[in-house]
């Protein structure tokens, strides 16, 4: 967020109190990518990620009168998404859905840019994203969530602990384990 721009909380209050749809559009623009990737990495399924993503925003719109500035807006938004992810994973009975093809297709579809039309560039980017996505996908769900909230949501350890309902030390342990795994994979990739 640049200096002088209204904060997320201000925009949300403006949307809640004054019905400023422009404020909501600004909020959506700020967080749509991070939340979508969070949902995508957590579900490993584009369809369910879109479902969770849409449900999270719709819950925010419909429950806007219950919004209170007790924490950062980002924490509030990711809390909604987190609860929805848990519901979806419980409903489906497993969190082991692979991101392989669907994720690659989705990413490829989102990379349609005129300057990036060269096949080797697109292929190399796709391979790197797939490799990182695979590393993340192999993480346990709790560690993956802690890592994604830290990377995509840019939440602090305390916020992650509050959001997931665990202690701060637990969050630190999960995050440390995820980072070690990512480091080891990336070192092995370089060596190979």
């Amino acid at each position, binding site marked *: 967020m640049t200096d002088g721009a209204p904060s997320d909380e201000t925009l949300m209050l403006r*949307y809640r109190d004054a019905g400023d749809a422009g404020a909501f559009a600004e909020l959506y623009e700020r967080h749509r990518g991070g939340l*979508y990737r969070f949902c995508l990495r957590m579900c490993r399924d584009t369809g369910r990620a879109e479902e969770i993503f849409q449900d999270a925003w719709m819950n925010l719109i419909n429950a806007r009168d219950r919004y209170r500035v007790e924490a950062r807006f980002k924490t509030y938004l990711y809390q909604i998404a987190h609860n929805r992810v848990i519901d979806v994973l419980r409903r489906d009975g497993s969190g082991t859905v692979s991101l392989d093809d669907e994720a690659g297709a989705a990413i490829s579809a*989102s990379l349609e840019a005129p300057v990036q039309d060269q096949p080797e560039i697109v292929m190399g980017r796709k391979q790197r994203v797939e490799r990182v996505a695979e590393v993340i996908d192999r993480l346990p769900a709790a560690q993956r969530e802690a890592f994604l909230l830290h990377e995509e949501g840019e939440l602090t350890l305390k916020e992650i602990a509050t959001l997931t309902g665990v202690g701060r030390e637990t969050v630190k342990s999960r*995050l440390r384990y995820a*980072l070690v795994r990512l480091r080891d994979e*990336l070192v092995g990739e370089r060596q190979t």
Partner: protein
Amino acid sequence: MSEQTDREIEALLAQTRSARARLRSEAAHELPPKHLDDTILAASRRAVSARPVPARKAGVRGWQVPLAAAAVIVLATSVSLLMVREGEHERVLAPPPVPADASPPATGQAAAPDTARSGEAVNALRDEMRKETPRALPQEDREKKSVGQVVGPFPQASQVPRSAGRNDAETGTTAHDQAPAPAAAEAERAAARPADEGSTVDSRIKTERAPGSAAAVPPQPTPSASGPAGRLSGAGNFNQRKPLPREGAKAELEQDPASRLDLIRKRWEAGDRIGAAAALAEFLEAHPDYELPPGYPVPRPLLAPAKESGPVNR
């Protein structure tokens, strides 16, 4: 432990910074599809458009109408007050109307109704001034006032005799004689005087009853000389007309002696000592042989004919 974990996490974040940056830069293109954006933004607009009116526009319209109404009310009230005050100001600055007949009549001519009204107003004003400065009136005016306001600069039309001046000139009577009840007027005037002056009525009775005075002043050959009023007015320097007897005196005359004495005693006890004394004198004249009951409060007149009183001319 915690600090060590923090340091370890910081080191891991530094080691994976390049990889994470690459992940973020590469994954930055992972965005929700366009139809999701449209759906969510449309839902956000729909949710707020269901509200009645935006607060800012409603506020502008909300205070314009009350402000206009308040301005109209204030303006109307101000103009009304200004008009009222201007009317009062003109009324104050205007010269008071002077009626042509406001001056007191120089002669005893009959007063017109307008004069009577203006006289009433002046009398009311004079009453107020009298209340404020009661001691400023001269003694003579106070005496005149005590006899019933007969004489005054602006008498009432009903109080002004039509030929008062002529009557005074012809009969020699005074304004006191114009009173309808001379005895009552006399009593009031006597009451207004200091107590040490004594009873004028008693002195008159004394003069009448005295045998010597009877010889010096021959009695008037009037048939009503036996009446109380006629007797009081029978002196030469008094009114020769016979004022009507009071109702109470007439009633006393028609009663039996015991009742008359009782009434006289009541008058005495009520404070009308002059009237009681006069009535007792009259009673004794009518009933010279009647003996007063023992302990009768009203003193017997010195000149009253009584068997036990002996010679009265001492």
